[in-house]
C-alpha cells in the first residue's frame, strides 16, 4: 500500500567544493499513511534531519537529492521546483524547525510572520486584510495555547517554549497534511519539552495530519508516536510499532540505543554507550555499516547491504536478526550499489 507520503530509493548527497562527497541518506524507502504519527531516531549525523529536509524539498546546497522518487498524495514532488513546488506547500507538507532563536525573523513581529505566509498563498477570492490576518493568526496561536497578543511581539520578546509554539502555529497556517517535526523540543528544558510535545500530540490527534517526528530522544518519540523508524548511517535499519519497541526482536543497533537509557526507578542504573564511532559517510562500500561496532557481526555481514525484512512485529535490516529474506537480497544488492 502506498501512503500519503511515499519515498522510493531516496539518496541525498552532500557535494562540498572541496573534499569527499557524503552520502547522508542511502536508498531510503518510506511510506507514511494518512494520519499516521511516525518517529525517526538515530544518533547525530545519521541523516535523519537530512531525510526530513529531503521529504519537504528543503535541501540546501551543497546537499541535493541524488536519485529516487518522493510522492506526496500521488504527485511526484522530487522533480518539482520554483512556483510549482511553492504551490504544493498550501495544504501540503510543512516543516517545524528546532527553534532556538533562529526559526523566526528577528526584525518582524509574529503577526507579520502570519501575514507573510497567508499573503504568499492568497488565491482569488481570499481577502487578507489586516483584521482577517490577525483573526486567523489569533486562532492559530490559540491552537498552540498562546494568546493573540503574541501577534504584536517580536521573537526576542518570547521565551523558548513560546517561540517553538509560534513556529508550530506558523507551520499550521497553510493547513498542511504532512508535517515534519525536526527536533522540536531539543532546545527546551524538560518541563517545557513535555508541554510542547503534549501540544503536538493533541494537535495531531485532532487534526489528523501525518507527522514525522525526528529526534535523538528515544523516550520522547516512543511516548508520542504510532511507529518508530531507526536510522543508522543514512539507512533505515528498523521499522516497528512504537508500542512494541521495548520488547521483541531488534536490530543490534536499536538494542544498543535502548541500552543508553536508564530506568530512573532502578536502584543501580547501568548505562551502556555504543562502542566505536559512527562510520564515515563518504564510503560507498557494500556491507552492513554497523558491522564494525556490532557484537553479533559475522563473516557475511560485510559482503552486502542488509535490507529491511520481517522480524517479530516489525522489520529489521540485519543478517543476524532477520536472516532469511536477506539471503535472497544478496544478489539484488550490486544493482543498487551500481547506481552510484
Amino acid at each position: 500500500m502506498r501512503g500519503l507520503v511515499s519515498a522510493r530509493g531516496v539518496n541525498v548527497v552532500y557535494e562540498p567544493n572541496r573534499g569527499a562527497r557524503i552520502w547522508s541518506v542511502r536508498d531510503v524507502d518510506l511510506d507514511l499513511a494518512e494520519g499516521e504519527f511516525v518517529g525517526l531516531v538515530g544518533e547525530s549525523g545519521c541523516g535523519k534531519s537530512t531525510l526530513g529536509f529531503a521529504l519537504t524539498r528543503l535541501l540546501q546546497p551543497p546537499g541535493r537529492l541524488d536519485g529516487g522518487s518522493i510522492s506526496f498524495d500521488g504527485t511526484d514532488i522530487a522533480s518539482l521546483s520554483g512556483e510549482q513546488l511553492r504551490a504544493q506547500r498550501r495544504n501540503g507538507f510543512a516543516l517545524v524547525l528546532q527553534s532556538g532563536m533562529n526559526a523566526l525573523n528577528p526584525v518582524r513581529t509574529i503577526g507579520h510572520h502570519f501575514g507573510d505566509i497567508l499573503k504568499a498563498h492568497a488565491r482569488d477570492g481570499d481577502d487578507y486584510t489586516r483584521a482577517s490576518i490577525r483573526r486567523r493568526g489569533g486562532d492559530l496561536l490559540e491552537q498552540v495555547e498562546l494568546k493573540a497578543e503574541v501577534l504584536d511581539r517580536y521573537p526576542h520578546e518570547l521565551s523558548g517554549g513560546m517561540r517553538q509554539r509560534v513556529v508550530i502555529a506558523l507551520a499550521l497556517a497553510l493547513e498542511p497534511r504532512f508535517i515534519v517535526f525536526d527536533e522540536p523540543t531539543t532546545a527546551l528544558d524538560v518541563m517545557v519539552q513535555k508541554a510542547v510535545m503534549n501540544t503536538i500530540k493533541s494537535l495531531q490527534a485532532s487534526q489528523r495530519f501525518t507527522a514525522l517526528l525526528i529526534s535523538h530522544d528515544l523516550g520522547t518519540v516512543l511516548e508520542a508516536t504510532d511507529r518508530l523508524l531507526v536510522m543508522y548511517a543514512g539507512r533505515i535499519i528498523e521499522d516497528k510499532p512504537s508500542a512494541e519497541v521495548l520488547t521483541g526482536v531488534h536490530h543490534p543497533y536499536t538494542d544498543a540505543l535502548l541500552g543508553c537509557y536508564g530506568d530512573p526507578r532502578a536502584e543501580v542504573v547501568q548505562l551502556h554507550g555504543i562502542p566505536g564511532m559512527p562510520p564515515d559517510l563518504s564510503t560507498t562500500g557494500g556491507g552492513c555499516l554497523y558491522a564494525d561496532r556490532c557484537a553479533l557481526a559475522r563473516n557475511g555481514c560485510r559482503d552486502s547491504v542488509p535490507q529491511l525484512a520481517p522480524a517479530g512485529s516489525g522489520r529489521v535490516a540485519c543478517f543476524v536478526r532477520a536472516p532469511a529474506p536477506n539471503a535472497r537480497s544478496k544478489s539484488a544488492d550490486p544493482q543498487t550499489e551500481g547506481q552510484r
Partner: protein
Amino acid sequence: MRYVTRKVVLFVLTFWAALTLNFALPRLMPGSPLDAALGNLQANGVQVTNAMRDAMAAQLGGAEGNWLSQYFSYLGNTLRLNFGTSFSFPTQTVSHTILQALPWTVCLVGVTTIIAFVLGTLLGVYAGWRRGTAADSTVTLGATLFSAFPPFWFGMLLLYVFAFKFQIFASQGGYSPGLTPNLSLSFLSDAVQHSILPAVTLTVTSLSGWVFGMRNNMINTLGEDYVTFAEANGLRSRTIALLYAARNAMLPNITAFGLSLGAVVGGSVLVEGIFGYPGLGNLLYIAVLNHDYPLMQALFLVITVSMLVTIFVVDLLYVRFDPRVRREVIA
C-alpha cells in the same frame, strides 16, 4: 526613554572630550604658529626683526595667561564659533572660510557616499541572493577590480581621458573661473558639470566596500533558519530575499553607512586636491601646507563634531531598524 537619555549624556561627554583634545593637541606639538609664520617670512628672504616678531605675535593674538584661562577662553570662543583669522586667507575669519567650503564638500562627498551605499547595497543583495551564479561572479569580479583602483590614480585617469583628451569636462575647480557662486540655474549646471569627474571617482572607488560587505552579510543571512523556515512556508522568493534576508543583512551596514556619512565633512583630501575642488578636503590640505593653526584646529573640530553628531543620530535611528535594541528602551 532611558536609552535616549543615556545616549544624550554620552554624546555631551564625548563632545567635551573632543573639544579638550582639540585644545591640547596643538599645544603638545613642537613649534608654534608664530615660529611657522616667521619661518615663512625668512624663507622668502625677509629679515625678521624683534619688532616684526612682536607685531606678528600681537596679530596672531597668541597665547595669553596660563593654560587654564586659555582653555576657558578657547571653550567660550568655540561655542561662539569664533575661531579667529586664518593665515592662509587673512581677509576672512576662519568660520567664514569653512562655511564657504562646507556646501561644496557636503554636496559632492555626501551625494557620492549615498549613491555608493545605495548602489553597492543593491548589487551586494543581488550577488548574495544569486550566489554562485555567473551574475554573482560578474559583480564580485567587477567590484574587486574597482576596489584595486587607488582614488587619486583613478581620478587622474579620468582627468586625462575626459578633460585632456576629449575635453568633455572641466579639469579644475568647482565652477568656471570668473563666475561668482549663486543659486541660479546656469551656475548650478556649471557646478554639476565640474563635479561629475570627482563624483565618479569617489563613487567608483568606494562602491566595492558596500558590495562585498552586503554580499557576505547576505550569504550569512541566507544560511539562517528563518530563511529556511520561510521557504518551508512557501513564501515568495522576492519576500524572502528582501524582507527576510536583505532586511537583516543590512543591519551591520547601516552603522557603517552612518560612520561614512559622518566622515563626509572631512572631505576627501586626495580627490579634492586632484580636481582642485573648493571643498573642506582641499582647505585642510592648504591649512597643513601653510601651518595655518587656526584653520586646522577649526577644521578638526568641524570633522570631529560632525562625526559625533552622525553617530548620535544613527544610534537613535538604529532603534527603528532593529527591534532587538528596543529591549533596552523597555528595561
